[in-house]
């Protein structure tokens, strides 16, 4: 998990200039898609709570050591607060993705299988007996982020989206969606955060678990809706 946060945070902060994302836009097939299987294990097991330009990160190795402890402690408390209100990101994402697909008259089944080894697309898609295509949404990171010391905390989500044909061989679409990402990479879809869900700091976040969870629900829903919008 720590490794993931390192990679995600590095990716987020470097994305401003280092690389551009190359998407594969959807090209509607002759036979419109009416049935889709949804790959599971969509979200990471824990939410993140990361301050990007923290004071500690500006003070070399000693600052970095202190900062790592502060960041981890905050993340633990945020996850405890979310557990307290029984927030389940995986179930939320499955529900909102299914709902978004159904609203486009696409029937959904859940593709059973093992959990991912890494936060990336499935390496091999099983032949889809129940749908014309498989939708693979991989949330790379979700949680709360602050751009830096003294800046507010807002929900954040970064997800990769891929639709493959029933044989699992042809990629019908591939894209990356970022909800409130610091320094977003060129070429990825960027969604601006809902201004309602804002916290001044750690204490306000953990003392308002319902609002904390609702902010994530809104962010994950926005990403799910955007994912399904790509199928047109």
């Amino acid at each position, binding site marked *: 998990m720590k490794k993931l946060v390192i990679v995600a945070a590095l990716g987020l902060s470097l994305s401003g200039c280092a690389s*551009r994302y190359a998407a594969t836009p959807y090209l509607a097939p002759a036979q419109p898609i009416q049935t889709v299987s949804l790959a599971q294990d969509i979200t990471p097991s824990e939410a993140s709570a990361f301050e990007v330009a923290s004071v500690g990160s500006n003070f070399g190795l000693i600052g970095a050591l202190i900062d790592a402890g502060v960041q981890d402690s905050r993340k633990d408390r945020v996850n405890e607060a979310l557990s307290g209100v029984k927030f389940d990101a995986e179930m939320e994402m499955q529900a909102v993705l299914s709902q978004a697909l159904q609203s486009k008259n696409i029937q959904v089944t859940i593709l059973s299988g093992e959990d991912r080894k890494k936060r990336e697309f499935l390496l091999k898609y099983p032949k889809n007996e129940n749908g014309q295509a498989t939708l693979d949404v991989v949330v790379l990171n979700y949680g709360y982020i602050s751009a*830096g010391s003294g800046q507010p905390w807002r929900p954040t989500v970064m997800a990769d989206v891929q639709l493959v044909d029933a044989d699992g061989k042809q990629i019908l679409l591939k894209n990356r969606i970022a909800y409130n990402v610091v320094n977003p990479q060129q070429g990825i879809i960027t969604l601006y955060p809902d201004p309602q869900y804002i916290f001044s700091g750690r204490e306000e976040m953990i003392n308002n678990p319902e609002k904390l969870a609702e902010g994530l629900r809104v962010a994950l829903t926005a990403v799910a809706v955007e994912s399904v919008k790509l199928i047109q």
Partner: protein
Amino acid sequence: MKKVVYLAASCALLASCASGPGFSSPVTKFAGVNCLAKPDLTTATSLEFKKKKKFNELSVPVVQTSKCLSTANGDTPFQLFAIPGVTQNRVFEIGSAVEPLRVFSPDIATLDGNGNVVRRFSKDQFAFRGGVYSVQMRALENEKFVLVTTAPQEVGKFFDSIQTSTSTTSVYTGFGAANWTNGVDRNYTRAFSYEGTIIARVVDTTPSTK
């Protein structure tokens, strides 16, 4: 610990990335001059780039004196792009630059070789992609041109967006130079405009053979 070290390094690298267009105001009127009834296909700007690069980009400023087209929705500035002959492994991203105060309000359609509309992108097919408000597409066999005009119904509409970023400044101490990175959390209010900048990007998605 590693996490923070990586972050500090990455934030420092970001210091050289800050750039952007000026603070021009949104323009809600367009007084077209010598407007055409239909675009001249022979004057289209080619999206075939001489340099073989994975990412290529063209930007075209839109002002009152830009080329004008008379449409059912009124007079509009326009830009016509010619889709290259070989479209396999190419992704086209067409839209407009997100400026600090405004975004050119784009209406995007593809045309066949005779200038007939093949497909027109609806508003919900547009998305913000970093600093561009755009559609992405792979070209169909009969699509030869991309026509960018204005969506007049959107012109003048305001929208808010919260954008987060980091900025790094170098400071000199008695022991040498040091970088300090700050977080930025800012709400922008922008409006769709008749003027702005049209952006066309072409991405070569040919798998690398290296």
